[in-house]
């Protein structure tokens, strides 16, 4: 049959159904009439003829049904019928429908939200040409040290890069990027006023062609641009172009001053590309201009300056493992060729870990990938609970409908048709739930991003086609799964029993019980996880960090970039401290290298005077450069000796204060005061510092990690650049009498008064610094609590549903019990006991499961063991109480059963 006429038939059968049906009705009736007429002619009376005709033609309705079945689109017709019926059933039980749809929507929504976040952070690939061939020289290109200290190489010198580039067999091409981001002070040439801060990334000239990118405007770098003698060129990131130049094409060719050097804007990177690194730069600059940008001697000439990250593109058909083996052989060759560097032992343990780079390198990915996967697992458990819940609801309802179903079976409904009908109902629920779930996901994904990364994050968790497919698949699968079980069960009903009326009790609902037990156990696992995260947060926030974080403001400065020489700094620091201490409300002011809880740390080996060279202890210390009264400003007590003071200036004997950890580790048996040590090895009497004080331990770069041995040398005693102590203070610290947050503009002004070319940036309080550190733990606690609460809520709905249903089924039995003299309290206990039994079994299953599951998050905890008995007990009690609350209403209802009504029920 041609498609067109098939469509016509379909259209008529579905949409002109009433008319076709009336027509059919007329036709069959006329047949019957004609037949009757025939019989009359054969001699029967009119009445007899009609009867005979009716018998001969069979039931009119039957005939019509047969015709309908034969029509095109009969299945669609019955589907619509099923849908109408299902919608009517749901409308008749709005409470059931609402609970089921809401439950599903929460579960599906939570999953879709997590999935889109996981997708944005972990699964998305870089928008570059064939990203699957990219590899990074180390998947974790940051940390405190690269190379010989740990053996793990993630940063390289220009000489290393050249060696890899010229001796490689596995790679089509290599390119280099400056590790980390450069802080740029940018100003359009000729413009007056203050400079703007921007983030810059130095890249080798082949960077853009290596990635196969085309410019959004102008042109991108070539290797020509990456030569010191070339004219300085810059490529803008698309969003920066929009923001700063209002995507004006005439920006191309414009000259901008970056840290004092004039660069010409040559082009704009493609819109979708935002770098391969873990931060998004605003401006890309060629590596050759590193001295101009970073205001240092050229790193490219120093084989000991490890400043480059390397990305490579694998040749076709070369495996990552092969490339890895090759690269590690080359690394050893490089290290051997450059004899000045490592010992044979250090070379032996040196390695590079290649990492697939299709997704780019992401700090966020590294930090959150595992957490997100755990979260995904949690969301999966929640979805399971959801499915169990809806299955339970449908199951109990289909049991309640046993009578209806067996009547329908008895009057001839096909079993297949009945299953189809029940499936349609559950599918309808899931579709509603899925639709609502998408809405929840849209809102939830964004909320999650904000929760995890703060607002204004580069991550966009958006709802895309894949997520829609994911959601639809989950909801349909759920619909089929939990629609099928009750449907199969229901249609297997013994025809006669339910019609006669049911009064059976007992534990017929093995499946329902199992589902409730599963829900309780799963929520227990999630609650314990959440409890452990909360305890971690509590321990972290509640610990004494060793310093007094109240009333301290921090501001960042960069004298090196502003052009100060080391010799000029003591006067600068002094002036700054004097000016700041003159501000009203300021008690002390000081300077430091990085200060507490900063990502930037500085560590070194050292040699103690008079100590044998070869020692079992690896003399390694974190160092800090501090101004006068540093410990007073931070509120760290001095245990022995004295604080660094103003007198420890240029010309005075070099002094240092060490912390208790260092005193304990290296001066366990002796009084450290008066002892001398020098940084580096061997002991250097010229640079040696005398210990003048021991400060109490205080948290340094992390609130979690053990406090390392530390030494604090005096910033005012500036040694010459060649010394191990060389460094610039980059932090101004102020202790205030009152609210520290109101002082930022005064501090900014004071710094500007002292040195006009030295901007004070990133001003925050020490308390904010602490909170930033707690943030990830806070996130973990918030997220896991949210999910656990969701799981608990769902489990309660499940428990309530089961108990309520059971009570309604047992109304009859309860009535009899009461007639026979059962007290209301007995009835209450009867219901509560069942509920308690379910909860007890759920806990019994859940506790071992939780013991196994919490091992996964053990590394994320602080100050609390994964098997923390307090958390386990607390959560179990909480669950028990909430479960009791859930079955209180059904138990109440059971208690209020009127025996007379209950008995008349049959």
């Amino acid at each position: 049959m041609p498609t067109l006429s098939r469509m016509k038939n379909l259209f008529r059968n579905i949409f002109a159904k009433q008319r076709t049906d009336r027509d059919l009705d007329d036709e069959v009736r006329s047949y019957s009439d004609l037949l009757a007429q025939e019989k009359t002619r054969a001699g029967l009376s009119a009445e007899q003829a009609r009867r005979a005709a009716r018998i001969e033609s069979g039931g009119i309705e039957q005939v019509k049904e047969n015709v309908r079945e034969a029509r095109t689109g009969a299945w669609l017709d019955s589907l619509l019928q099923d849908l109408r019926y299902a919608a009517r059933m749901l409308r008749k039980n709005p409470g059931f429908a609402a609970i089921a749809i809401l439950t599903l929507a929460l579960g599906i929504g939570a999953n879709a939200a997590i999935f889109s976040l996981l997708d944005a952070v972990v699964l998305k690939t870089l928008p570059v040409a064939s990203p699957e061939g990219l590899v990074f020289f180390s998947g974790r290109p940051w940390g405190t040290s690269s190379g010989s200290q740990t053996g793990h190489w993630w940063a390289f010198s220009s000489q290393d890069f050249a060696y890899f580039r010229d001796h490689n067999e596995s790679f089509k091409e290599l390119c280099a990027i400056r590790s980390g981001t450069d802080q740029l002070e940018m100003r359009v040439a000729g413009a007056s006023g203050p400079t703007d801060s921007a983030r810059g990334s130095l890249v080798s000239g082949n960077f853009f062609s290596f990635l196969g990118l085309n410019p959004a405007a102008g042109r991108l770098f070539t290797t020509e641009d990456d030569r010191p003698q070339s004219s300085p060129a810059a490529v803008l990131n698309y969003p920066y172009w929009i923001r700063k130049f209002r995507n004006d094409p005439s920006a191309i060719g414009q000259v901008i001053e970056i840290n004092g050097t004039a660069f010409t804007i040559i082009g704009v990177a493609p819109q979708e590309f935002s770098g391969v690194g873990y931060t998004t730069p605003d401006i890309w600059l060629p590596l050759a201009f590193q001295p101009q940008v970073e205001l240092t001697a050229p790193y490219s000439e120093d084989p000991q300056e490890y400043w480059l990250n390397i990305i490579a593109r694998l040749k076709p058909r070369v495996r990552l493992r092969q490339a890895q083996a090759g690269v590690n052989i080359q690394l050893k060759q490089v290290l051997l060729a450059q004899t000045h560097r490592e010992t044979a032992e250090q070379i032996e343990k040196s390695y590079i870990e290649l990492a697939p780079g299709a997704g780019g390198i992401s700090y966020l990915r590294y930090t959150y990938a595992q957490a997100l996967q755990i979260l995904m697992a949690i969301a999966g458990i929640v979805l399971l609970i959801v499915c169990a819940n809806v299955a339970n609801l449908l199951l109990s309802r289909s049991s309640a409908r046993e009578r209806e179903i067996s009547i329908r079976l008895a009057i001839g409904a096909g079993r297949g048709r009945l299953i189809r009908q029940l499936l349609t109902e559950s599918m309808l629920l899931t579709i509603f739930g899925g639709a609502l779930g998408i809405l929840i996901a849209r809102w939830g994904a964004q909320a999650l991003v904000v929760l995890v990364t703060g607002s204004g994050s580069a991550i966009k968790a958006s709802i895309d086609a894949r997520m829609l497919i994911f959601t639809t698949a989950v909801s349909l699968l759920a619909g089929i799964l939990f629609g099928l079980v009750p449907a199969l069960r229901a249609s297997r009903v013994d025809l006669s029993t339910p019609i006669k009326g049911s009064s059976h009790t007992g534990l017929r609902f093995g499946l329902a019980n199992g589902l409730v037990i599963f829900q309780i156990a799963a929520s227990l696992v999630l609650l314990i996880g959440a409890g452990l995260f909360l305890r971690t947060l509590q321990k972290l926030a509640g610990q004494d960090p060793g310093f007094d974080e109240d009333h301290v403001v921090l501001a960042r400065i960069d004298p090196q970039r502003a052009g100060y020489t080391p010799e000029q700094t003591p006067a600068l620091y002094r002036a700054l401290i004097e000016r700041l201490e003159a501000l009203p409300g300021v008690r002390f002011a000081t300077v430091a290298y990085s200060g507490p809880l900063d990502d930037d740390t500085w560590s070194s080996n050292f040699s103690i005077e008079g100590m044998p060279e070869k020692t079992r202890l690896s003399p390694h210390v974190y160092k800090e450069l501090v101004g006068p009264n540093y410990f007073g400003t931070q509120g760290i007590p001095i245990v022995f000796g004295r604080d660094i003071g103003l007198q420890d200036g240029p010309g005075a004997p070099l002094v240092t204060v060490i912390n208790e950890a260092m005193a304990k580790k290296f001066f366990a048996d002796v009084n450290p005061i008066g002892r001398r040590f020098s940084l580096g090895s061997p002991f250097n009497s010229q640079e040696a510092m005398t210990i003048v004080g021991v400060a109490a331990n205080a948290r340094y770069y992390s609130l979690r990690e053990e406090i390392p041995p530390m030494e604090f040398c005096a910033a005012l005693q500036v040694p010459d650049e060649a010394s191990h102590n060389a460094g610039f203070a980059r932090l101004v610290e102020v202790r205030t009498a009152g609210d520290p947050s109101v002082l930022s503009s005064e501090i900014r002004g004071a710094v500007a008064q002292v040195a006009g070319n030295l901007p004070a940036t990133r001003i925050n309080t020490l308390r904010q610094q602490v909170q930033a550190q707690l943030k990830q733990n806070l996130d973990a606690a918030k997220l896991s609590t949210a999910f656990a609460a969701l799981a608990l809520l769902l489990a309660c709905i499940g428990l309530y549903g089961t108990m309520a249903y059971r009570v309604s089924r047992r109304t009859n039995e309860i009535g009899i019990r009461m007639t026979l003299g059962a007290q209301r309290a007995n009835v209450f206990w009867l219901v509560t006991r069942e509920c308690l039994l379910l909860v007890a079994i759920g806990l019994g299953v859940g506790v071992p499961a939780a013991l196994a599951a919490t091992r996964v998050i053990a590394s994320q905890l602080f100050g609390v063991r994964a098997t923390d008995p307090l958390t386990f007990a607390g959560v179990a009690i909480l669950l028990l109480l909430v479960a009791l609350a859930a079955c209180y209403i059904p138990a109440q209802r059971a208690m209020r059963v009127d025996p007379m009504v209950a008995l008349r029920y049959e």
Partner: protein
Amino acid sequence: MISDRTDLLQGTLDMMILKSLALDQMHGLGISRRIEQLTKGTFQVKPGSLFPALHRMEEEGWLVSSWGESENNRRAKYYRLTRAGRRQLNSETQRWGRISLAIARALEAS
């Protein structure tokens, strides 16, 4: 009498209906009686199978229907062959000839 509900005869029923309409248009009861007459009473087609077949064949485009007056002034729905229906009748007839010949031969062979 052969039951008209035999599955094997599904195609046969279509063929019989087409055949009965080969000469003139007819209403449902007429078709039923005509088939009885053609097969000398071997086939008795009941409305339960007749009407689904008629509607199906109409959807296939082999028949068209219209309301008309019966021989004694009763309203009745008349069916008439279309060109496609006539073609279908021809091909069904040929096919049936082949099948019945083949079956007859098979049964004759020992």
